[in-house]
């Protein structure tokens, strides 16, 4: 028998410690969280690690989720903070141990059947500044509104728009060269 349980109920059950409910939420959102992590770090393996970290953080922090925002919005905020924290840690590590070679190239264009344009676009996205890339991914790829992006990233709607326009202009110029 198939039981239809709405998202709010699943969130409540997961908050109460029900791992089965967390699993149902995971199945619903995992690919979107993975997509966000992948676009932010440009490496599938690293993105999978960060996706795992995100869900462990969701489990730990669910008691602080009061349902004021949509669960999806709150989840993206958790994911974005996980990515941001990982990037800070990575930067600190690089400062302590300077590499004598350039960092590895992005592993985004892993599918060889992709047209060159798509590969070029993904590489250009990976080169965007962090905040501009985050806004571009959330708006133009994941389909969030500027109001939602403001809540996820903790910035004003106007700032979100400014980052988006800056990111798109940069991509447009790079891709038309």
């Amino acid at each position: 028998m198939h039981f239809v349980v709405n998202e709010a109920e699943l969130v409540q059950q997961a908050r109460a410690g029900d791992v089965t409910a967390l699993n149902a939420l995971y199945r619903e959102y995992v690919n979107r969280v993975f997509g966000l992590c992948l676009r932010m770090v440009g490496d599938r393996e690293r993105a999978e690690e960060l996706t795992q970290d995100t869900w462990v953080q969701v489990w730990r922090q669910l008691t602080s989720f009061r349902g004021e925002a949509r669960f999806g919005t709150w989840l993206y905020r958790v994911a974005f903070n996980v990515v941001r924290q990982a990037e800070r840690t990575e930067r600190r590590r690089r400062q302590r141990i300077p590499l004598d070679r350039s960092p590895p190239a992005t592993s985004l264009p892993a599918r060889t059947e992709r047209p060159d344009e798509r590969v070029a676009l993904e590489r250009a996205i990976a080169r965007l500044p962090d905040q501009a890339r985050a806004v571009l991914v959330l708006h133009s790829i994941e389909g969030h509104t500027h109001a939602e992006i403001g809540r996820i990233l903790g910035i004003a709607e106007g700032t979100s728009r400014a980052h988006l326009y800056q990111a798109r202009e940069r991509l447009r110029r790079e891709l038309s060269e």
Partner: protein
Amino acid sequence: VSRHLELEEVHRFVDGELSADQGRRVEEHLQSCGDCRAWADQLDALRQQLAELRDAGAAGDLWPGIAWRVATSARDEQLSRARHRSSANRRAIWSGIAALVVVVAGAALMLGGNRQPALVARPGSAAADTLVATFVPIIENLQRIAHRQAVLVAPGVAERLHEDLTANAHAVSEIRVALARDPGDVELSDELTRAFRREVAFLEWVVRVTPGDAR
């Protein structure tokens, strides 16, 4: 040709965020301005390309790793709370024993007897038997449910759950062996109670978090 479009104007146009009037004015401008037309076309093509990236492909099966980390995190919190409670309980027990010693010793002195008073009753094997009779049926029942439900979770997680269940059972078994050698040892008896309680708590937690057919 009127002035070129502003940055925000053309981006909002491409995103469909302009009002009908604003949109019509931009359309009119684009009819007569090749530069702005090319700009808007490039942005619109970019918008479509970006939307097509939405499908980043599926992540691998990450759930076993997440379930294990969630399980470990919950168990650690539980053990930490148990340790805190256990330490508080131990303080309460020793305070109680101290009070009892004072009362019994005082009563013995008041009775004026010269015999050495038995300060506290030692639990003896009867106390251990009572603990076993109380806890073992509960644990066995929970173990049956936990093992049945553990097969429903990912193999890696089930394996780690099984390891933890075995470790708990082993700890209980060791204390019981030691207590059989020295049935009057108060600390061992107390340790057995705590080990039983830990095992019950852990089994209850396993039953709660694994996808059970009993629920």
